[in-house]
């Protein structure tokens, strides 16, 4: 059984026989799955919320601007109007653009099924390429993302081969929080999007200065497991992860200090 929301992954997978489900269930008429609102200090993003919705949402711009930036890098306008954030984490390809931002924001995945509901922390969600903890007969109703305390700063840096629509070759999400807390996650650099707790620990309580960054970068190779494929080499991805992390740390810190470039528009 497969769930159909936007279908931007499902339709080509079905056509190319990459998956052969006995049943495809369209959830678009189920009530409540299109919600994008604030509930108990968290943003609730329903299963039918598209990346275009996220890009356009004032709530996202206000509370989770990095997620809005990440949403804007997915595919093209025509894809973003169909592709959903929940679908993106259910497809669970290693380059999944929602993964790193949701990981640093410690999102919760709200699953419903015939046995009732359960809530899965995003860190436990991904099992491998195209594999999640979702069981047959279950579907994701929504994802909740806690609104982080202020002052905060975040950055999502995504490497692609050209400016056109491309799968991420590597991505880094950084969230800087009060009291020197740092959260770091990588995408397309391991079988699943991954948090990097050792990197975070090295940064903890510190400013993103040269020394802290050098300490953090030393731990990057152990935090990720990039592969060589036709798109990029393992060595390139490994080297770029460090460069991107350094840039993302600077950007997040600048933004936390309120002196940096505005969210949601550009880095300049």
């Amino acid at each position: 059984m497969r769930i159909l929301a936007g279908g931007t992954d499902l339709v080509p997978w079905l056509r190319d026989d990459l998956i052969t489900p006995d049943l495809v269930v369209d959830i678009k008429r189920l009530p409540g799955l299109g919600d994008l609102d604030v509930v108990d200090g968290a943003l609730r993003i329903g299963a039918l919320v598209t990346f275009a919705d996220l890009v356009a949402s004032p709530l996202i711009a206000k509370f989770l601007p990095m997620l809005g930036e990440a949403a804007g890098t997915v595919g093209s306008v025509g894809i973003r109007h169909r592709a959903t954030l929940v679908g993106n984490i259910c497809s669970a390809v290693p380059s999944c653009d929602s993964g790193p931002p949701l990981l640093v924001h410690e999102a919760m995945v709200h699953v419903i099924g015939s046995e009732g509901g359960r809530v899965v922390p995003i860190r436990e969600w991904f099992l491998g390429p195209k594999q999640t903890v979702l069981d047959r007969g279950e579907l994701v109703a929504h994802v909740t993302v806690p609104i982080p305390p202020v002052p905060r700063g975040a950055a999502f840096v995504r490497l692609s081969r050209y400016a056109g629509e491309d799968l991420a070759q590597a991505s880094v999400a950084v969230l800087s929080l009060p009291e020197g807390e740092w959260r770091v996650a990588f995408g397309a650099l391991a079988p699943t999007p991954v948090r990097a707790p050792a990197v975070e620990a090295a940064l903890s309580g510190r400013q993103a200065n040269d020394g802290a960054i050098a300490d953090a970068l030393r731990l990057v190779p152990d935090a990720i497991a990039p592969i060589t494929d036709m798109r990029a080499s393992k060595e390139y991805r490994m080297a770029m992860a460090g460069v991107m992390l350094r840039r993302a740390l600077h950007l997040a810190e600048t933004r936390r200090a309120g002196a940096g470039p505005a969210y949601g528009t550009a880095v300049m």
Partner: protein
Amino acid sequence: MTFTTQRREVRSGVGTSADRPDGIPKVKGNFAYSSDLSAHGALWGATLRSPHAHARITRLDIGPALRVPGVSAILTYDDVPGRKVFGLEEADQPVLADGEVRYWGEPIAVVAADDAEDARRALEAIVVEYDVLEPLVDPEEAARRDETFRTMTVRRGDPEARGEVVVEGYYDTGMQDQAPLGPEAGLAIPDGEGGVDLYVATQWSHVDHEQIVAALGVPPDRVRVHLSGIGGAFGAREDVSLQIHLCMLAMHTGRPVRMVYNRAESFVGHVHRHPSRMWYRHEATRDGTLVRVTARLLLDGGAYMSSSRAVMANAAYFAVGPYRCDSVEVHGVMTRTNNPPCGAMRGFGAVQSCFGYESQMDRLADALGMDPVELRLRNALAPGDHMPTTGQLIEGSLPTAEVIERLRAIPLPSGLDATHPLHLPGGTGLTTSPGDVVRGVGYAVGMKNLMFSEAFDDFTEVRIVLTPVGVEIHTAAAEVGQGLITVCQQIARSVLDMEHVAVIFDDTSQIGSAGSTSASRQTQMTGGAVLAATTELRDRILAEYGADRLDAQGVWREGELTVSVDELCQRGPAEHHVRFRHPPTARPDDNGQGDVHVDFAVAAHRAVVDVDPELGLVRVVRVDTVQDVGKVLNPRALVGQIEGGIMQGVGLAVMEELVLDGGRIRNANFTDYLLPTFADAPDVVAEFVEEPSHFGPFGAKGAGEPPTISSTPAVAAAIRAATGRPITRVPVHPDDIIGL
């Protein structure tokens, strides 16, 4: 009968940006491309392809597939009724696999079924067993084993000539794909009398026709090839793809059959640009005068010949570029391997060697401590000089120095414009801040022959018909999007002084060949034929009626309308047919010497790039160009050719490459075969030099290919300037910039 005596001016003649006649249907979505065609009761065709780059077929059983519901026919090698091979230069490629498959994706069987899904099921039900063989995929190994389509040597001048300053280098270019957006597609309709009508997107209907009738084993008049709407070509439609298969299926079933390749199939259904490995040595005096150029060019033709011999010749003849040099030696080897067949793509061999010699010119300038533009100017080829390779005297126009000087005078763009992420390397991925960026500027100059060379009997036929409502131009020339159709109209309007001109694409039974829409040839050939035919018709009419002018109202003498156009059409002469040739060319001698070309064009490009050296990302900011076009017939269409051609050159420079693994294409899709998008597109500033060709209509030269030739090395040079990296291979990868 009263005649008005007011003259109406022709508004859309030569020199104007006349509108395309097919523009309105194209923006409305009503223009019928070959993939849009259908017919009542049409079957769907589909092709079974080899999953191996090299294998013997030990068993081929279509029995189970014939029992799939909806299947009407399954045809294999044994069912090819006539000549079992086809090919552009030499018939060496089996219509369907002959017991051995020699490249990944080679057609083995074709199916006709009630719909696409039935056809797909039938393909899955065909039983094929293979004895998989080791594929030969390394061109250097193929060269050692003498597996070649052509080897050639161009020798000119004193082999002992030596320069004081010597630079050497190896250069590589990847396998580029034309990637026209319209997939290969066609519709074949049996005529009920043992013949067939094929509607297909092709660059040359008559050469398709020749190959189809040979394979079907029928007299030529049994098959008519009709041009249908063409969704881009760039060389990909010069070879036969599904033409013979469709006709076989239609003849066999007695029903119309349509076939449309999907994108993955399109990537194996047409030939590609030959990948190359080149070694060069340039020798010069201390003041920068070229003394001797030696080169070895290794191009891989893949499994079958296609147009590989002509591509090899072009790469070798243009191996020095538009520069004077009196001592030259070029060895060319075109290998035969189990890689995908390569053939025509915009630039046709001149692209590969231009990357080699322009990289060398920069290296030489560096060794001399000389400005690279000055070095090029010092050696710029001009009329009265001899081609450095073939020795041919340049008799027509060739404003090499002028295109370079004018290019240098175009103001450079100002510094980094950081107003939007799209202006930075990495784009909306926000990888790059302005402080991460370094800028580079690079120049390159390229040269190409126009029209067919080496004694090819190159002709085109045009028939002009006057009707009371306007002029008809009949031709079999393929309009692939470039705007030939508009240029032909403009020429006819200007000559006949009539605004209403229609271009009618005749099928192969109605008119003779127009030759290929390739080699930058149709403006000069079919455009030239329209000029000749309309001029001759006008002169016949004026002579017949003792008149002094002709226009849409009729025939005039001394300011009086003497014969109305209606009457003229009744009495004639109202029709004129020409078979039009360019001046003959010679076969080369054993040393590659001779007057093998008709005409040449040069172009110069300057690229400005912003590079993020830490991430290896490049944004091509602007490409400026000055091109030798002879005469501008339609400014808007010309700019379209130049900008589009530059984009394909930029694509080869930084992103476009088919990646092979044991002969298999790993990126036969638009996810991983990267085509430049709006977000990648540089701005272009284009200027023209108008020094008339000795042969083209109104002095025009073909303009389609030069933009694609030197734009690639210009971008590579700019990346070198920005990074200091050697950059000896295109497309340039991030690893090459980072130095991994």
